[in-house]
């Protein structure tokens, strides 16, 4: 347990660069607001000559990187972990409850892929109409998976907020970083299938 992030020497601290306090639960809105303020302050377009433009471009690049890292939960947690001298655990060790989520998501994805492969070959209105029932059940399965992922992310988010209030725990943070990465990946996979179902 410790209360303040120690910054390893030689490492960029994106929280300082973006002008926000180091926190695991930094919201997307807060990251965007900070980026808009810092980005406007150092934007190369506001330069009066070539030398200033170059200096601003370098500064803007850092602010841009900081925003990209801190606005995405998995990358933010990984960065926080690195700043604290820890590392994201290598190898995927999923705890049992996350394993259950994975099983559900994976089944939904496989079902969706099988359906999408079938529907890709249907071009006429009649052939498509015959697939309606299956399209609806596939959508339902994906929606359920998405809901489970959202709920899980909300739980994670409240854990992160608690950590910010009570102090960082390296082991907890390590787990959270790993879980966040999995949840984001699965969320994107489910989302992608749902969008493909539209066509």
């Amino acid at each position, binding site marked *: 347990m410790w209360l303040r992030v120690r910054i390893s020497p030689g490492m960029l601290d994106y929280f300082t660069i973006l002008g926000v306090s180091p926190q695991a639960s930094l919201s*997307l809105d807060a990251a*965007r*607001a900070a*980026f*808009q*303020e810092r*980005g*406007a302050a150092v*934007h*190369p*377009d*506001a330069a009066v000559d070539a030398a200033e433009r170059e200096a601003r*471009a370098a500064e*803007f*690049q850092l602010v*841009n990187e900081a*925003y*990209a890292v801190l606005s995405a939960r998995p990358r933010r947690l990984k960065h926080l972990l690195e700043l604290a001298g820890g590392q994201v655990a290598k190898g995927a060790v999923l705890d049992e409850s996350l394993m259950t989520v994975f099983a559900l998501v994976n089944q939904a994805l496989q079902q969706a892929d099988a359906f999408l492969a079938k529907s890709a*070959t*249907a*071009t*006429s*209105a*009649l*052939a*498509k*109409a*015959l697939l*309606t*029932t299956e399209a*609806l*059940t596939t959508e339902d399965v994906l929606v359920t998976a998405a809901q489970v992922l959202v709920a899980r992310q909300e739980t994670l988010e409240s854990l992160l907020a608690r950590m910010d209030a009570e102090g960082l725990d390296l082991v907890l943070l390590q787990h959270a970083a790993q879980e966040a990465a999995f949840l984001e990946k699965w969320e994107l996979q489910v*989302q992608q299938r749902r*969008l*493909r179902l*539209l*066509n």
Partner: protein
Amino acid sequence: MTSDDTIVGIDLGTTNSLIGVVEAGFPILLADENGSRLTPSVVYFPSDGGEPEVGAAALRRRVTEPARTIVSVKRLMGKRRGELNLSVGYPVVAAADDRLRIKLDEQLLLPEEVSAIILRRLKAIAEYRLERPVHRAVITVPAYFNDAQRQATKRAGELAGFQVERILNEPTAAALAYGLERLQEQAKVAVFDLGGGTFDLSILELREGVFQVLATQGDTQLGGDDFDRAIAGWLQGEIFANEPVPPLAQARMLEAATLAKHQLSAMDEVEISLPFISGTKSFTTNLTRAQFEQLILPLLERTRRLCLQALADARCAVANLSQVVLVGGSTRIPAVRNFVADIFQREPNTTQHPDESIALGAVIQGGMLSGAMQQLTLLDVTPLSLGIETFGGLMNVILPRNTTIPCKAGEMFTNAVDQQRAMLIRFLQGEREMARDNWELGQLELPFSPAPRGQARVGVQFAIDADGILQVLARDTLTQQDQVLEIRHAAVQVDDEKVESMVAESVEYAFEDMTERQLTEARLKAEELLTAVSTASAQAGELISLEQQAAISQATTAVQSALNSNSLTALKAANAQLDQATETLAAALVEAAMEAAMRRKGLI
């Protein structure tokens, strides 16, 4: 202000182009000598080799001389062989370097050369109004334009004698015009931009003079042009059925289609009259707004997924948007407005002039860069992920889509064998997992200084500049030498003579290929329909009338006999007939399935 400080803003559109400038702190658009701010993006090349005509005068030539009247050239910008999905009415060829060119007599013109003629005309309008020369410009492009399309646009500006200060994304430009009077508000807005040939959807956050693009999606081959073609295609079916269509009739049907489309934004029904369209045969018909909406619905449907993808990328729920701003001429169409209202669950914002908003935004950006306007900050993004091909033919993303520009990313490369002197890097843009499914931007050879395997070290920096254009810088860490690398486009550059000799064999839409492919496609479609009919027949009895059942079985027999006849026109006609005969059945099946699903969930 001296002429060297002035930066004009230009909307180089598929259908129309505009130019403007900041005067006394206000963005204004400049009209030609006839008082028109819209210049049709059309160039007519007289057969006597005289000066090309531009604008309204050129547009009038389209019906009589379609092959010499270049319309919608924006659709060809930066395009390569196989990337054009429509016929533009004039000959387009892919030369040996794979880039599309317009064939005009013995000449082969690059699309940017034609665009440059339009830009020169706009420049002349500005100089006529301002009574001083202008040299610097901001030019807008669809947000979803890739690297080659942006480069071609920039090149067009340079050919026209401009120093191109910025390539600006169209929806971002519209957001600038929209947000200029709302600088105190904090809001998330979507800009739905449906023009003559392109579609973009951008989601922005506006806060205290900062415009941040959160996400952008688009289709650079979807616009009002396609609606015209949908109507013209329907007309062709009505007038010519499966007979060949004379080229002039094609141009006249398109012209009539455009007119009908415009009128149907205000009227419920229009008369389309085409005297002597086929020899001595005249043709008159009525087109209702409902019919028109049916024709364009499949095209509109394509925008839905893109809108939802952009919202997901921006991590923004529909409910969190303050406004959905419409721009682009095609957003005048009531069906488009209804479609947007359906997707975004609100009435769209129509405060912006559909034709002028983007140009005004370009003018504002020009004013910001020249210092003629207050400082606002634009944080725009790159629309497509940039990556390189890696082992196993996979795409390795280096800068993901929606990364704020300008941006940079570095990557370290090493030699795989002793004394290897160079390695080839292929650059890609797109979102697919496999490299081959993405668009190849180009490739370059990365030089190594001689060293044992794994010892050479070259750092490569990929930078996307404020115009959305890629630049590559390599640094050899052994020699500490920097090198700006030239990206070679996918195909080898060849000299003009060679280009000409290859033209004949590479005409797009080669005729024979086309028939063969169409016949295969029609056969597949027929087989699919026959299978679907036999599957659906069990339920047909409860869902549709006896007459409809009889019509389906008659059309089915026709498809079966057409399949044996090997005639493309007969098979296509039979397919279309069966498609039509099963329309009610398909709709009834969808409805029955939805109802069953709702019952299962206890919703009804």
